[in-house]
């Protein structure tokens, strides 16, 4: 399975939750599959999805699901100790780990070689870390929502992108309707 197939499968779970989605093709895919006001699409700033989600989870009680990628987590590795030492019970970081920089042409990342984000998250102090295969993502995500505990999911999947249009929505519109969904 590739990322877009996972997103299609978990879209019914994501629909009712606050979702912070990673820059580039992941946001384009989620936007095309199931656009919701409760989705915050990152249009730039590689690496910060997990941080934005963490701030959001600490500021309000609704569950927050961050859809991140291995390349983006690698570029902001400091996020893992911050999450581990400041766990929010309503925070779920779903790292779609396809071992490649999908938005830039599928160049390999180090997670396809010797690096394990699962072990790094554990070593960083994250208490609930679950590694799963792509097919298991929906069940693992539902478990995490039910657990009510800060969770990092590392979902191992195949590299590849669906062809989806660029998001042309104004960023202030994305942000404003998202804040409306937070308050709703």
């Amino acid at each position, binding site marked *: 399975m590739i990322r877009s197939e996972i997103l299609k499968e978990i879209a019914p779970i994501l629909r009712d939750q606050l979702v912070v989605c990673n820059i580039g093709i992941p946001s384009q895919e989620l936007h095309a599959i199931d656009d919701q006001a409760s989705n915050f699409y990152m249009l730039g700033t590689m690496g*910060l999805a997990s*941080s934005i989600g*963490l701030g959001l989870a600490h*500021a309000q009680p609704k569950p927050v699901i961050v859809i991140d990628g291995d390349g983006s987590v690698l570029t*902001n590795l400091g996020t893992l100790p911050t999450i581990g030492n400041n766990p929010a019970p309503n925070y779920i970081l779903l790292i779609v780990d396809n071992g490649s920089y999908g938005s830039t042409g599928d160049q390999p990342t180090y997670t396809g070689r010797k690096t394990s984000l699962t072990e790094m998250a554990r070593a960083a102090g994250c208490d609930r870390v679950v590694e799963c295969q792509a097919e298991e993502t929906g069940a693992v995500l539902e478990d995490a929502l039910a657990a009510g505990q800060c969770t990092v999911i590392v979902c191992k999947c195949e590299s590849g992108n669906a062809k989806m249009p660029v998001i042309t929505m104004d960023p202030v519109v994305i942000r404003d309707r998202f804040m409306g969904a937070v308050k709703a």
Partner: protein
Amino acid sequence: MTIDQKITADLVAAKIGLVTTVPCKQLAGVIEEVDQHPEIHHIPANKEDEGMGICAGAWMGGTRSAIIMQNTAIGVTINTLATLIQFYRMPLPMLISYRGELREPVACQVEMAVHTKALLAQLNIPTYHFHKQADAEELPMILDYTFMCNKPVAILTDANFWGGYGDQ
């Protein structure tokens, strides 16, 4: 009331409920005050762009936020300021230790000091420079202004403001 307590009280009065920090020796006192204040949720960050992401999320979640960092961080966070804070129109007070100014003992700090105001000006970021402790009287107004206009705003605080770096 010390200057550290005054700054912290001003943050609280402006309804700032979450503060992220990356330390600087000059900021040690205010970071300690922020950390101990019951009305502020303090999340130390490993890098300032990460901290700005946390602030952005907190603000969207309904909690006003601020970052405390050193001016070297302007070099780290230009992309985040442009593509997250400014692009999505978010307010972000940045209390910045302005290293490399008068009374600075470390030469390398001057190398970023000479770029600091130029970079902030290039980014059209409203910038205030506290050189004397009386300058901090404007802090409540600067915070109100930040949340009025939904922009990042820089408050540069130099060694003279803090009573000297290393010679105090």
